[in-house]
């Protein structure tokens, strides 16, 4: 029996599903048992999200007023990596681990094994990250782009991750005929995260790795972090959430599995295109560029599969979980397309080293990963709190702020990158003109971050209420609109 059928009762279809493997009581017990761990992940993640968004606003303002908050510890050069690590290692990773913990226990139909150890792991991860942040702010930054935190911080984070991953892997068991696609993505992401952070830091500590190779190691680790950890968990979450909302199984299992394997092999090769034309072998950048184009296949396949799974269901239109997830998938589609176009040789020379790359990264991280994780949290929280979200207005504010803000902010970066890239490419434009064409978008970025921040703040408030079990009585999910189907 597939998971989708097994959990059909979750979406509260009036007639209870007799075929369900677990009784509602069992499920409630499993959910209650992971509650402390999952809440801990989500709460620390949201704290990092607020910190990171505030820093991002300051950092964006610094491009308009270069000396804004320009103290030694908060100048542009230090805030910029801090805003980015608090976002990806703080918010995205903590939220993704919370979603993964809940999914694994649900998919395995039993409480997690070693929850306490995992909680300790989450504490260590946060402590390590805090160490890393303080190191950057006080000037102990590494020279390698993408791995700015010192290795001591990574060591602490890795020890925490080891505990968390152990808990996940020991707890996972397969209950269906085949491993569900959601579980494949989540397990693969967790393993890859551990392996690549470990291997990357170990390689950098070896004597033989220096010069350009060190940056290649950093690029590999960093791109694995985004494309092999955050993206797979977000896809896994989409593969879980969408069938739950529609009450129908996934459109095509074989398509999902095929895309999974292709994705895992291709995405791992896309990380080295960044330095094309620079001090790396030509074959390497060509290979990475081809992989970025080939990546369109498994990504479009997965997105098609997920969207086809919603067909005809009115539930997806009104469910916040589905709306956030689907919005994220739409953004992911455009991000992967832009990434492929940007890796075409002629385009790449123009957009390389401009804000274009940051724009694509923002689409992936803020647009897809973050929105998909929000979608999952909207689904999970009622189940571990026993009540429904309090206010559909807060959900709307969250969605509008996050969706418009993220889209606008990413587009500003992409346009700024294209404009300054084109100007840089013409050797007879003076650098002053390059600065001018690029900077016309900086105010837009500030405004977009403020929008995003409002949305995130609304969500954090809503989340805290939910964590305190302040909400609508359980039973009817809170939708965007009251749209009862029956």
């Amino acid at each position, binding site marked *: 029996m597939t998971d989708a059928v097994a959990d059909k009762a979750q979406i509260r279809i009036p007639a209870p599903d007799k075929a369900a493997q677990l009784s509602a009581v069992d499920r409630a017990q499993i959910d209650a048992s992971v509650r402390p761990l999952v809440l801990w992940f989500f709460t620390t993640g949201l704290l990092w999200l607020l910190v990171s968004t505030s820093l991002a606003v300051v950092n964006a303002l610094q491009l308009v007023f270069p000396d804004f908050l320009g103290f030694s510890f908060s100048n542009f050069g230090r805030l910029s990596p801090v805003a980015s690590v608090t976002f990806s290692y703080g918010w995205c990773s903590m939220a993704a681990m919370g979603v993964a913990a809940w999914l694994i226990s649900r998919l395995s139909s039993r409480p997690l094994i070693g929850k306490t150890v995992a909680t300790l792991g989450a504490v260590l991860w946060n402590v390590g990250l805090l160490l890393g942040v303080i190191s950057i702010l006080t000037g102990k930054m590494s020279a390698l782009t993408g791995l700015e935190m010192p290795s001591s911080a990574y060591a602490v984070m890795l020890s925490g991750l080891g505990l968390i991953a152990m808990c996940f892997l020991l707890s996972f068991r397969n209950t269906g005929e085949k*491993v569900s696609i959601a579980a494949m993505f989540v397990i693969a992401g967790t393993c890859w995260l551990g392996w690549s952070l470990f291997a990357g830091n170990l390689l950098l500590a070896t004597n033989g790795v220096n010069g350009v190779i060190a940056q*290649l190691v950093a690029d590999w680790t960093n791109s*694995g972090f985004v494309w092999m950890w955050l993206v797979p968990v977000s896809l896994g979450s989409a593969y879980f959430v969408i069938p739950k909302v529609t009450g129908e199984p996934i459109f095509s299992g074989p398509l999902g599995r095929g895309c999974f394997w292709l994705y895992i092999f291709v995405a791992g090769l896309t990380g080295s295109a960044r330095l094309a034309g620079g001090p790396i072998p030509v074959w390497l950048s060509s290979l990475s560029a081809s992989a970025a184009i080939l990546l369109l296949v498994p990504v479009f396949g997965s997105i098609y599969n997920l969207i086809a799974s919603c067909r005809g269901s009115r539930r997806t239109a009104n469910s916040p979980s589905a709306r956030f997830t689907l919005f994220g998938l739409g953004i992911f589609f455009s991000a992967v397309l832009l990434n492929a176009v940007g890796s075409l040789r002629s385009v790449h*020379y123009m957009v390389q080293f401009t804000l274009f790359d940051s724009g694509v990264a923002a689409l992936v991280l803020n647009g897809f990963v973050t929105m998909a994780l929000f979608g999952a949290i909207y689904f999970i929280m009622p189940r571990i709190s026993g009540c429904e979200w309090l206010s559909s207005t807060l959900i709307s504010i969250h969605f509008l702020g996050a969706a418009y803000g993220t889209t606008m902010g990413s587009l500003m970066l992409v346009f700024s990158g294209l404009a300054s890239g084109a100007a840089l490419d013409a050797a007879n434009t003076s650098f002053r003109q390059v600065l001018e064409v690029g900077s016309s978008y900086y105010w837009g970025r500030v405004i977009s971050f403020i929008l995003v921040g409002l949305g995130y703040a609304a969500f954090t408030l809503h989340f805290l209420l939910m964590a305190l079990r302040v909400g609508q009585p359980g039973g009817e999910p809170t939708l965007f609109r009251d749209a009862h189907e029956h």
Partner: protein
Amino acid sequence: MSRSGFLFPILLIAFATSLGVTVLIPHAQLGALTPDFKEEDGLVSDVYPNVPGGLAEVGRQVYVSEGCQTCHTQIVRGGDSADVDRGWGSRRTVARDHVTEHTPVLGALRLGPDLSNVGSEKWRNEPSDDPYKPAKRDASWHLKHLYNPLAMGEGSIMPSYKHLFLVRKITGTPSPDALQLPKAMSAPTGSEVVPTPEAKALVAYLGSLDRSHPLKEAGKATAATTPKK
């Protein structure tokens, strides 16, 4: 019974492929690179790049710790790119340019110009036919620029690094190191702006950045490299 057993082996193969192709093979290809040198009668000369050391190496740490690499690359691209024509270098940079650095400061974003060769006489950041004579970037130019980028030209979005300087009362004779700033930006009368040791080291590092030494794998230097009049 669980059928998840196949997941891990295949995942490991994917992981090994990724690591092998994008890290280990390039390492096998480039890992053995050594500095370039001339050898005559057992005497080694003309070593490039040199092992970093001294003040410039301290300055390199200041550069990294201030995060200059978030806005400046140190990569001159070849091919169809405009980097060489912009005056940022005489040739593209190659892996050998970085063999003596444990972790190179390549950077990822060019909100400011590329600095691979900023210490070279020929470096420029203006079109070659710029009507305003490009200023010579000597140490005192860089110090003033770091203290306040707007002192050296309008429209810069580079932050000022005032925390690398001291503003102090002049007691006795003014310090020979004091910055000669434009009126509007200078310290109040009776005070002077002097660089800290960090600022001096940073400027020594900038002055040391010159990767124009010819290397055969980087190809011929192009016409744009000819020194300006």
